[in-house]
């Protein structure tokens, strides 16, 4: 059996007591292109963030390549949603891509020649080399997205977590980014991608994680991406679940009892 790239165990996350991820539990294989699909506010961003340890979990745990995140951090690359940063920051395209080479280890030293070469290579990959000296506020949304992907490529990781890399990207760029992701997959990398366009899931992805606050299904596209599952994820509000969530919030209950084995 192949090693698992990402293993999420009974993950529960809440914002000011209100659970937004509820007992999510799945395991994803290495070397696949995997989509995370679900309606707005279903917790996709939260899921990626908690895999990266960026939001506190109220329960459960995550393992990456069968190890805790801190052991393998340098092999994981995270691409936040484009809107999460202020693009009016005084930096040029290449500066941002070079940030992909920052490590705790080289925090105090200067970047090396290799780092610069890797950054240029990454810019080539997303066809943004000619923009490398451009101020980042002067980029279109799709170009900003490609800068973020270049920064991620510069990290030379084994696992990529990308939050909506196709958002605001035109058809040609989407194709180009997709080709890139395919290439990465061919070279054995694992890619976990938040995706919004249900029409292209079948065509682009090998695996899919369907979710709506709780996990609906996770598995190979042909098995899991069914009408019934889509209905479960998108159709019908989860009235009971959201009522319980509200109650949890009001009462200030802990979402899980500490020290109780599940």
């Amino acid at each position, binding site marked *: 059996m192949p090693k698992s790239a990402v293993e999420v165990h009974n993950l529960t996350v809440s914002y*000011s007591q209100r659970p937004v991820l509820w007992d999510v539990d799945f395991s994803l294989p290495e070397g696949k292109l995997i989509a995370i699909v679900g309606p707005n506010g279903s917790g996709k961003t939260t899921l990626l*963030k908690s895999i*990266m*340890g*960026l939001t506190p979990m109220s329960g459960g745990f995550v393992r990456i390549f069968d190890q805790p995140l*801190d052991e393998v*951090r*340098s092999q*994981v*690359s*995270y691409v*936040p949603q484009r809107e*999460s*940063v*202020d693009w009016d*920051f*005084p*930096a*040029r395209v290449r*500066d*941002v891509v070079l*940030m992909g080479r*920052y*490590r*705790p280890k*080289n*925090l*105090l030293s200067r970047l090396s020649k290799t780092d610069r070469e890797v950054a240029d290579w990454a810019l080539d990959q997303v066809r943004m080399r000619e923009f490398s000296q451009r*101020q980042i*506020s002067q980029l279109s949304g799709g170009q900003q997205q490609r800068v973020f992907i270049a*920064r991620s490529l510069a*990290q030379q990781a084994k696992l990529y977590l990308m939050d909506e890399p196709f958002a605001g990207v035109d058809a040609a760029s989407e194709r180009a980014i997709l080709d890139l992701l395919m290439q990465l997959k061919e070279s054995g990398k694992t890619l976990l991608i938040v995706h919004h366009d249900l029409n292209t899931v079948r065509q682009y992805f090998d695996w899919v994680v369907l979710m709506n606050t709780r996990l609906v299904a996770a598995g190979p596209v042909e098995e899991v991406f069914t009408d019934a599952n889509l209905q479960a994820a998108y159709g019908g509000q989860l009235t009971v679940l959201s009522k319980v969530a509200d109650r949890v919030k009001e009462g200030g209950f802990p979402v899980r009892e500490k020290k109780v084995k599940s």
Partner: protein
Amino acid sequence: MNNLLQFLSLSDPNVRMVVLGATLLGAGAGLVGVFTLLRKRALLGDAVAHSILPGVCLAFMVGQSKNPFVLLLGALIAGWLSLLAMDYLVRRTKLKADGVIGLVLSVFFGLGIWLLTIIQQSGAASQSGLDKFLFGKAASITSQDVNMFTWVVLGLVLVLLLFYKGFKLIAFDQDFARSVGMPVRLLEFLLSTITVLSIAVGIQAVGVVLMASLLIAPAAAARYWTDRLSVMLLLAAGMGIIAAWSGAYVSFAAPSMPTGPWIVMALALLTGISMLWAPKRGILGRSLRQWRYARKIALENVLKILFQLEERSGMAGKGYSRVSILEHREIEPGPLNMVLRRLKRKAWATEINSLWRLTEEGLTEARQIVRRHRLWELYLHERLNLPADHVHPGAEAMEHLLTPELEEALQRDLGYPVTDPHQSPIP
């Protein structure tokens, strides 16, 4: 003039202390303020400046001395506590950040004023000189103060240099910084500490109320001039220093003038100038470009009219009166006179008996404009499938904008055409 030279020579030891002190404060606050601004923490800086007061008072009461290092320690602790309090309240209550900032600011500041009153009533007030933390008193900067400022500013420059990459990363994209395992908490701690320190020394020159502008204005002004973080840092420090010297000079020339407020006035002026004059982002720079563009368009339009009149009449050499130019196309008579004068000055047109005619050079220029206009019409027609009667307005604007390279590219793309969609020749 003499006055200025005397000031610049720094021969008066008193002046020297004030200038040196203010320079250090201005540079320090300018540098640190860049990160405060970029991390959108400007209001936080204001709150910290106010919250430092109780710390200074307590340090004075406990230590019974006005040793600047002891007071600085008190300031640092109080500033830090206020930051922690704000952080805690934002995370643990429903209050929004601005509400929390206002709350912490007023509670700490109120406490500080109360302590200050106690100190003053105890009689130690006159020698304590603590009110300089309230209103700032650059004129009373002593060599002991300058000594302390030097250490503080050296320290913060060192921290900035060492952790530059880390600070840049957390200012731009904190989630990403954490995702690569950067010690974000340590970096934030360091950044907050040097911010509190620079505020604690800064208020001694400009006072609590004006401190926020000493911190933010240099950075805001610097941002107008550059797109690079490193340059922005240098510029902000430079603006802080210029403002410091200006403030010191004003109170030197007119001794009744306070230094601190004049430093802030100078900063306001620098910021205003930057807003107006900065080449790319400044208001004037932008209007200047628009004005130049409008002038260019006006000139080129008249060139084109003269060319078309000649083309239409089918014979060269004849001149045209202002009236026939105005008939051909609606132009204000006033601007037309100006344009004609400019054409004459450039020797692109000559006037004989009030009849205007293009010279050889003028003809070349005009041909180029008409060529670009017609090329663009053809391009819209052929490549974008616009009907022939729809392509004129677009080309009217593009003819002024196309560069020689673009023109060549169009020529190549269209296969060096000879007529436009209206069957007029492309010159």
